[in-house]
C-alpha cells in the first residue's frame, strides 16, 4: 500500500488513477446519453413507487401488481380523455426499499429523469416525508399511504392520502366498543417503535381518554417475534382490552397468540387492521374469535369492493391479498377522474378540484371526498366509509357501517 517512492508502484498508482478516470468517464457517458424521457405525444407518464424489496415488500409488490394491471386495462380500453385529447398511460415502477433516502432518490428519477406527472405511493412515513421536497417543488401530486399525521399538511401542497388512518378509525371503533362493553376501563395499545406505530398508538390514546378508558402504550422494535416479556409487563397492568395492531401483520398476529397463551381473556379491538383470513393462521383462529375491527370483508362489501377483490383473485393468489393495493388503486382512480373532470393534468387544477370538496364517483368505495381541514389544516385526507366488523366463525361480519 502506498509504496510511493517505488518506481514499480508509482506506475500502479498511475494506472489506478487511469482506471478511476475511465470509470468516471463511463459513468458520465452513461449519464449523458439518454435524454430525459419526454412523454410522447399522446402519452402521460405516471410513477409507481412502492417498497419492492425490504420489509415492506409484501405491500409494495402487491401494489405494483395491481396498479400495472389497472393502467394496462385503461390503455386497452383506449386511454384517458383529458380535455379534447386522449392519453395513453406509460408507467414507471420504482423501489423505495421502505427507506427515506431511497424514496427521495426514486422520486428524483421518476420526476427529473422520467418526467412523471403523478406518483402513486408509497407506504411508510419516512419515504413519504423524504420525497416531499422533490415532489412539492416540482408540483407532482402524490397519492400516498402514510399513517404519520405529518404526511398531510398545508405545506405538503400536493400530498393526498387515500387511506384512512387510525386517527379516523380509532374514535369510531372505541366509541362503539365502549357502548357495547362499558366494563372496558383499561386498554393496552401495542405498536411498533417507528413513526407509524408511535402515531397509531397515540391516536388510540386520543380516542380512548375522552371515553374514560385508560391507555397503556407499549412499543417494540420492528421485527421482534418474542412478545412474552412485553406481554408479561402489559398483562401485569390488567388491561380489559388490547389493540395489538399498530404494527406489521405478522407481529400483530403473534402478539394476539402469545397474549392468549399468557392468559389474556379480554377483547382484541383493532383500530388499524385485523382480518381473520390473514391474521388467523398465525394468531390461531380461536384466539381472535370475537375481536372487533375496522377492517371489512371486501369480498362481501360494496359492488366496487367485490369487483376489486375478484380482480385480485382472478390474477393472483388470494392468500397474498392485502389492503395496500386498494389504497393506491383508489388514488389512481381519483387522479384519473380528476384530470378528466378538469380537462388538464396540471397539478394545481387537480389540487383545486380535490380541495373544493368534489365528490369522486368512480372509486371502489362508491362516492368519496377529501376532508381533514379541521385536523390537518388542509382537505387532503380521503374519507371512506368506516365499517366495524366482528370476527365470527373465522370470518369478518359487518356489524356497523358509518356514512
Amino acid at each position, binding site marked *: 500500500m502506498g509504496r510511493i517512492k517505488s518506481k514499480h508502484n508509482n506506475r500502479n498508482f498511475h494506472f489506478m488513477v487511469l482506471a478511476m478516470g475511465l470509470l468516471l468517464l463511463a459513468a458520465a457517458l452513461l449519464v449523458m446519453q439518454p435524454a430525459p424521457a419526454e412523454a410522447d405525444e399522446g402519452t402521460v407518464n405516471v410513477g409507481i413507487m412502492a417498497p419492492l424489496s425490504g420489509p415492506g415488500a409484501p405491500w409494495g409488490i402487491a401494489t405494483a401488481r395491481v396498479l400495472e394491471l389497472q393502467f394496462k386495462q385503461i390503455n386497452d380500453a383506449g386511454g384517458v380523455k383529458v380535455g379534447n385529447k386522449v392519453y395513453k398511460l406509460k408507467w414507471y415502477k420504482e423501489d423505495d426499499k421502505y427507506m427515506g433516502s431511497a424514496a427521495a432518490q426514486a422520486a428524483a428519477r421518476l420526476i427529473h429523469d422520467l418526467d412523471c406527472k403523478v406518483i402513486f405511493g408509497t407506504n411508510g412515513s419516512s419515504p413519504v416525508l423524504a420525497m416531499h421536497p422533490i415532489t412539492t417543488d416540482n408540483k407532482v401530486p402524490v397519492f400516498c399511504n402514510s399513517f404519520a399525521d405529518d404526511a398531510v399538511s398545508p405545506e405538503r401542497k400536493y400530498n393526498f392520502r387515500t387511506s384512512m388512518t387510525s386517527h379516523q378509525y380509532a374514535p369510531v371503533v372505541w366509541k362503539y366498543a365502549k357502548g357495547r362493553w362499558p366494563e372496558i376501563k383499561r386498554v393496552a395499545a401495542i405498536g411498533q417503535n417507528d413513526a407509524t406505530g408511535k402515531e397509531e398508538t397515540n391516536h388510540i390514546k386520543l380516542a380512548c381518554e375522552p371515553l374514560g378508558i385508560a391507555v397503556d402504550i*407499549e*412499543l*417494540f422494535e420492528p*421485527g421482534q*417475534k418474542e412478545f412474552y416479556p412485553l406481554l*408479561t409487563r402489559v398483562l*401485569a397492568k390488567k388491561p380489559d382490552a388490547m389493540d395489538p395492531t399498530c404494527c406489521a401483520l405478522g407481529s400483530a398476529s403473534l402478539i394476539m397468540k402469545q397474549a392468549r397463551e*399468557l392468559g389474556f381473556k379480554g377483547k382484541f379491538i383493532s383500530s388499524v387492521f385485523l382480518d381473520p383470513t390473514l391474521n388467523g393462521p*398465525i394468531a390461531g383462529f380461536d384466539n381472535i374469535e370475537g375481536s372487533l375491527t375496522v377492517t371489512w370483508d371486501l369480498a362481501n362489501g360494496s359492488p366496487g369492493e367485490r369487483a376489486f377483490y375478484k380482480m385480485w383473485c382472478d390474477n393472483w393468489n388470494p392468500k397474498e391479498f392485502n389492503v395496500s393495493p386498494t389504497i393506491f388503486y383508489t388514488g389512481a382512480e381519483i387522479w384519473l377522474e380528476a384530470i378528466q373532470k378538469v380537462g388538464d393534468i396540471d397539478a394545481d387544477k387537480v389540487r383545486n378540484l380535490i380541495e373544493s370538496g368534489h365528490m369522486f364517483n368512480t372509486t371502489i368505495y362508491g362516492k368519496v371526498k377529501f376532508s381533514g381541514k379541521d385536523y390537518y389544516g388542509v382537505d387532503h385526507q380521503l374519507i371512506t366509509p368506516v365499517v366495524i366488523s366482528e370476527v365470527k366463525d373465522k370470518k369478518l361480519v359487518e356489524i356497523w357501517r358509518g356514512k
Partner: protein
Amino acid sequence: MTLQMFVQSLINSILSGGVLILIAMGLTIILGIMKVVNFAHGEFYMLGGFGIWWFFAEHGLNFVLALILSVTLVGILGVAIERGLFKPFRENAFPSLIISCGILLVFRAATQLSFGLVDHAVPTPEAFKGMIQVSGAFLSKERLIVICITLALIIGLYVFIKFTKAGLAMRAVSDNPAAASLQGMSVDRISSLAFFIGSVLAATAGCLTGPIFYVSPTMGAEPGLMAFVVIVLGGIGSITGTVIAGLIIGFIEGFGAIPFGTNYATVMVYVVLLITLIFKPMGLLGHAEK
C-alpha cells in the same frame, strides 16, 4: 414484582436465551474454526423455517420427518456454500464477510420471490398443543419442547466437541490449522463438518420456532445479528461462553422488559455488550491468540 411475574420472566428468559444459544452455537463453531465471518447465518435459520413450512405445513409430512429433511437439506446447502464460496477465504475476514453479505441478499430476495409475499404460518403439531401452568406462570408445550431439545443439543454438542475424535480435531484446527494439517488432519473436511453442524443448528432453530412464530423471508435478520452479539459477548469459539452470553441476553430481555419495556431492554443488551468488551476485549470467556 409478584412471584407469578418472576416465574414467568424466568421462563421467558430461558426460552429466548435458549433459541439464541442454538443459533449462536452454530456461528461460534464456524467463526471459531474457520475464522469465516458469516453474516448469512441467520439465513440458514430462515431456510430451516421455510423447510418445515414447505414439508410439514404445505405437503403434510410428519413433523419430525419434515424437520430431519429440512435440516439435512440446509446442512448440505451449507457445505456446498462452504466448498464453493468460503473455502479460499478461511482465516480471511474481509472477503468472507462480503461474500456472506451477498449470500444474505440473494437468499432473502430469492425466498421472497419464490415463496410469495405473506408471512407463512406453521401449525403446531397436535402433540405439542396445550399449556402448562407453573405457579401462576404460563408455558406452552411447544415452547417447553423447544427448551428441552435446545438443552439436549447443547449438551450433545458439548460432548461432541470435548470427547469425540472429530470434536478434538475441530479444536485442533481451530487452535492452529497449519499444525493440525501437519498432523494429518484434513482441514477441508473439518471445515465442512463445522459448517454442516453450524447450518444444521441454525436450521433446527428455524424449524423449532416455526410453529411458535411464523416463517418469512426476513426472519433471519434479527436472530442473525443477535447471534453475533452473543458469540462476541461470550468469546468466539467458546461453547460455554456462548451459553452464558445467550442466557445473559435472554435474562436482560426477559427481566429488563418488565420495568423498562422491551425497547429499553434492547438498549441494555448493547450497553452490556460494550461494557463487557471494554473490560474484556475478547469477550467473557474468549482467550487471546498466541
